[in-house]
C-alpha cells in the first residue's frame, strides 16, 4: 500500500500539522518506505488471535472518593496565556 500526497494532506489536517511543499515530498517518501517495511506483517498467521490491548491484567477500579488535585492557579500557571485561572485561546473561526 502506498500513501498519496492527498492522503498526507488529509492526515496533516487530522493531526493539526502543516507542512511545506518540500516537507510533504519527504513525508510521502519516508512513510512509504516504512509502509513497505511493515508489509512483512502480512506473512504472519493471525487467524483466530485475539488482539492484545495492554500488558496489564484488566482494569483496576477504585472507590469513588474525592482526592485533592491541583488548584486552578497552579494548573493554569504554566499556560502560554491565562486569565483569572482560565486558559486563554484565540477564537475558533466559524465556517473555515
Amino acid at each position, binding site marked *: 500500500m502506498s500513501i498519496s500526497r492527498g492522503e498526507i494532506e488529509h492526515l496533516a489536517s487530522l493531526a493539526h500539522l502543516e507542512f511545506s511543499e518540500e516537507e510533504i515530498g519527504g513525508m510521502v517518501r519516508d512513510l512509504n518506505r516504512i509502509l513497505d517495511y511493515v508489509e*512483512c*506483517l502480512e506473512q504472519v498467521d493471525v487467524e483466530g488471535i485475539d488482539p492484545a490491548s495492554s500488558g496489564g491484567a484488566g482494569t483496576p477500579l477504585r472507590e469513588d472518593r474525592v482526592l485533592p488535585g491541583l488548584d486552578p492557579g497552579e494548573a493554569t500557571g*504554566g*499556560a502560554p496565556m491565562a486569565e483569572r485561572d482560565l486558559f486563554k485561546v484565540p477564537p475558533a473561526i466559524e465556517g473555515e
Partner: protein
Amino acid sequence: MNSRERALVSIPAGEIPGRIRSGELRARDLAEAVAARIERLDPELGAFLATTPQQARQEADRVDEGVENGKSPGPLAGIPVAIKDNIVTAGVPTTAGSRILEGHVPVYEATVVERLRRAGAVLVGKTNLDEFGMGSSTENSGFRSTRNPWNPDRVSGGSSGGSAAAVAARMAGLALGSDTGGSVRQPAALCGVYGLKPTYGRVSRYGLIAFASSLDQIGGFSRDLPGLALLYQAISGHDERDSTSADRAVEPVPGDGLSRGDGLWPGDGALSESGSGASLRVGFAESFLAHEGVQPEVAEITRKAGRILSSAGLEVQDIELPDPEIGIASYYLLATAEASSNLARYDGVRYGNRASGEGLEGMYRATRSRGFGAEVKRRIMLGTYVLSSGYYDAYYLRAQKVRADLRHRFQRLFESVDVILLPTSPTSAFPLGERVDDPMQMYLADVFTVFANLTGIPGISIPMGLDDGGLPVAVQVLAPAWREDNLFAVAGVIADAVQLPAWPDPGEEVR
C-alpha cells in the same frame, strides 16, 4: 582534574550509602565533585539539559545532617542521580527534549522522583533525550545531540542517551531513563553501562511524559550491579496514581542488600532457580547472530557470554526466536499509533509554547508544526494513518494481533528456558549524523530490544568491554515477567567473568 575528584566520582553507586552511613564519606563532598565534573565535561558531551547543583548541595547537606544526628539516611543516601528529561520534576524545567515544552516547569513530581528523594538520593540534573523518547541516538533532541563519552564523534544511543552518557562519564552514579522500544537498554549498550527495563507495570509511569502508554516503562542505568539493584528497588512497586502499575510485591534481587545468603547471589553458591535446585536454563538464539546488520564483534561477544554462562554451570540451549522484522514492524505501527494520541495534548493551550496562527485551529497547527521536530511529526503522521478509517484493520488491528501472538510465543519459550541471551544493539555506537536522513536505518537499531516492550517482559543490557574501535559492546538478557531477580543473577555471573575497561575521561585524553 584532581585525583580526589576522580576518586570521589568513581565510587560505585552501590557502595555510596554504606560509606555515608559509616561517616567515611560526606554526601556534600560527593555532590561538589560531581557538580565540578559536570561543569567541566558537559559543555562538550551535552548529556544534561538542566543541572541542579544548588538543590543537590541542599539535598546532600540534609543527608549529612541526618547521619550526624544518628538518623538512618535512606537506602540510596547520597548517590548522585540524573533524571531523563521526560520525567517530571517539580520546580525544575522539564522539556521531554522538545521545543514545544521549552521553559515548561512542572508543578508536580513523578512518583519515581519522589521515591528517589525519600531514599536519600541527590538529584543532579535532567538529561538529554530524543524528543518525546522517539529515536535511538539522541540526535532527535530539539536542543542538541549527546556525544558518546568513549568517542566524541559517536552517538550515545537513544532515546535515553543523556542518562547513559552521564553515568558512563561519571557525572552521576545512577540515572533514570525510559524504555519504549529499547531506549534504556540500547544507550546503555552504546555507552558501556548496565541498563535495565523492568517488567511493564513494575514501575509507576505517573509523571513520565507519555510516548506509547502500553510500551513505556521507566528503567535505570548504573556502572555497577549493586547500584542498579538499589535503584530498581527504590523506584519499583505499586502506585495508586498509575493504574497500570502492578499491585504486587517487589521481590529481592541479587545485590540489593536484601538477599545475600539465599542462594540467589552469585557468590553464595550454586546459581539456582530460587529454591528449586536446578541450574538456570539459558536460551541462546544463534540464528539471530546471522541477522543482517549485526557487527561481527557483537556476535562474538554474545557467543562469549554464552560460554561464560555455560562454564558457570548454567544450561545453555539453542532456541528459535521470532523474526526481529516482525517485532520492528508491529512496534512501529503500535508505538506511533499510541504516540499520535498521546501527543495530541501539545496544542499550545495548557502548557509549553504557543505559536500564533489564524484562529484556534491555526494556532494548533502553527504551535505543533513549529514546536515538534521532524521525527516526531513523522511518527504522528504514521500513527494517524495507521488508526484512520480504512486502514485501522489492515495496520493497527493486525499489529495488535501480531503482538498477542508474540506474547504467547515468548510464554512458550520460557517454558523451556529461564532467560534468553541475545545482543542488545546490532552494532556499537555509530557516527553522529550517519543515520539522521534514513529513518528506517535508525529504526533497525531496535531489532533486538522491541520484543521486551511488545511482550512486557524485563530486560537488561550487560556491558562486555570494548570492540576493536574502542567502543562498548554489550549483551542483553530477557526473563519472563516479574523475574528481574534472574536478570540480576545472570548479570552477576557475567560481571564476575568480564574485565571492564577503565571509565573514560572525555576531553582529558591526548588523542
